[in-house]
């Protein structure tokens, strides 16, 4: 067993957990703690390393409060993560998460100098009218001509309006999501660490299930860890009212197709290097393949008059069914004594023509006792997908793909905030975070037509969020 071969073997194992903890961030795996425990007696090279990793457990919890400006999305997200470490570097973790999301979300249409009216399928599974008693969320329930085989009482739609000059948003947006993830890892023979994991989440109109595996090996006196992780995800989308036919006119009528799916495979190859006694570097390369239904079934694109710019009709968006993604991620973390500085860089590109650069810097400053503050700033930039259009023009050829989703457009995102943390006791820590996130983009593109020249066509986000976290270590 490697743990009994000396302190170096112990470090080799724990460096592996360090790397895999990064790779499995989305699974919430917390193998890093085992690494920290293993380093707790670093000046005892001849010690029995098997004693350095006691059996221990951790309970991490957090709750997020997220709010966007102008009455847009509001979310509350509690999360809980349990981790148990075995005596031979085994790690088991189990996490649960819940989301409650409400508010207004852009529907993709452009603003107009006239009132715009939109009618969507009523958010009642199957179109049942049994629970419909009144309008809500700024919407009005209306009766529609029944489709063949549908009873008249169930033929309902939800209508909402957008005043002149305002960004069209659907204020009836609300959803809940519940998710669970589980993971296990341990050394295996000469392999420093082998791990498996899985996750499942369910929403009113979406389901996701994934499975992952990872492996890590240490070299160079355990200062270098090479790792490889693969994740398979299978998602199903079953939107209210059915799956709309792409690039057809928006309609509240029920669609014949009730669900569509997509699959995704991601591979992450990582290299972790302990450069000095206080400097750690991580380099990751990621490649992903996503095939299947990529559309947002609720998003539309305005087709405007070529002279006035007034919307004539709204079409459901259409995205390519295949997407290839890759990124390079570099992280450098240095302990300067009074503070720990973390600088990370990511370059991303995909087959949709999107290129993105992200730079994130944080500095954890030690204050009195266990108290610390950690200011943070993140700069993000992305180019537009090659099928992104703020609007389409009547009379021009319809493109094969089109989306007005601002998340596929060109913009810059800036996040800045502060974290404050301290130990309540020797085994408990609490932290508070406050962050501001703002996207800026071009709301007045050169190709704007007629009244669109006076409108702000950028539908970016301006948000603030706070987070409270609590962790408890126990035997």
């Amino acid at each position, binding site marked *: 067993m490697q743990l009994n071969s000396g302190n170096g073997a112990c470090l080799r194992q724990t460096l592996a957990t360090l790397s895999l903890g990064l790779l499995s961030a989305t699974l919430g795996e917390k193998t890093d703690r085992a690494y920290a425990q293993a380093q707790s007696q670093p000046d005892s090279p001849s010690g029995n390393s098997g004693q350095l990793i006691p059996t221990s457990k951790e309970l991490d919890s957090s709750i997020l409060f997220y709010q966007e400006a102008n009455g847009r999305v509001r979310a509350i997200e509690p999360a809980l993560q349990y981790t148990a470490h075995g005596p031979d570097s085994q790690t088991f973790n189990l996490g649960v998460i819940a989301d409650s999301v409400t508010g207004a979300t852009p529907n993709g249409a452009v603003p107009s100098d006239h009132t715009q009216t939109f009618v969507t399928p009523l958010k009642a599974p199957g179109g049942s009218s049994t629970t419909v008693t009144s309008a809500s969320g700024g919407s009005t329930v209306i009766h529609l001509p029944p489709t063949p085989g549908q009873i008249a009482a169930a033929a309902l739609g939800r209508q909402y309006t957008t005043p002149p000059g305002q960004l069209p948003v659907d204020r009836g947006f609300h959803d809940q999501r519940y998710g669970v993830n589980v993971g296990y890892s341990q050394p295996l023979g000469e392999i420093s660490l082998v791990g498996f994991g899985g996750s499942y989440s369910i929403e009113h109109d979406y389901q996701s299930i994934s499975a992952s595996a990872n492996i890590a090996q240490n070299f160079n006196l355990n200062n270098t860890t090479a790792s490889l992780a693969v994740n398979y995800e299978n998602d199903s989308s079953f939107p209210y009212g059915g799956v709309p036919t792409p690039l057809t006119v928006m309609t509240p009528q029920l669609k014949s197709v009730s669900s569509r799916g997509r699959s995704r495979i991601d591979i992450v190859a990582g290299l972790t290097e302990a450069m000095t006694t206080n*400097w750690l570097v991580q380099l990751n390369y990621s490649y992903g393949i996503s095939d299947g239904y990529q559309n947002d079934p609720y998003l539309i694109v305005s087709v405007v008059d070529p002279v006035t710019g007034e919307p004539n009709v709204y079409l459901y968006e259409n995205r390519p069914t295949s997407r290839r993604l890759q990124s390079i991620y570099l992280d450098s973390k240095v302990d300067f004594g009074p503070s720990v500085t973390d600088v990370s860089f990511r370059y991303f590109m995909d087959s949709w023509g999107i290129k993105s650069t992200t730079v994130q810097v944080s500095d954890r400053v030690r204050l009195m006792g266990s108290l610390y503050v950690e200011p943070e700033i993140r700069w993000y930039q992305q180019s537009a997908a090659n099928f992104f259009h703020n609007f389409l023009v009547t009379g021009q050829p319809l493109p094969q793909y089109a989306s007005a989703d601002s998340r596929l457009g060109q913009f810059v995102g800036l996040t800045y905030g502060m974290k404050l943390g301290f130990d309540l006791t020797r085994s408990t820590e609490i932290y508070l975070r406050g962050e501001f996130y703002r996207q800026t983009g071009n709301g007045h593109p050169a190709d704007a037509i007629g009244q669109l020249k006076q409108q702000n066509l950028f539908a970016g986000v301006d948000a603030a969020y706070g987070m409270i976290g609590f962790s408890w270590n126990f035997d």
Partner: protein
Amino acid sequence: MKSADMSAIRRGALFAAACVAANSLWACAAIGPKPWEKDVLARREMQVNPYPLQTATDEHIYFSKEAASGGRGFAGGGCGCN
């Protein structure tokens, strides 16, 4: 790609490279510590992902609001938010 896009990307890359270089030069003493010299690296704040729930929360927010994702870990979001 528009020249403005390339310019923005170059500026971002240059800024990142400068930050990493400054970060690196400060600490650069020798490559690879001895096993008994890793007490600082063992601290929680020196782990690559010391607060997984915080990381997961941030990644989830950015996944739902931006086109790029992943890099630090897997890129999938496990939700219908994007």
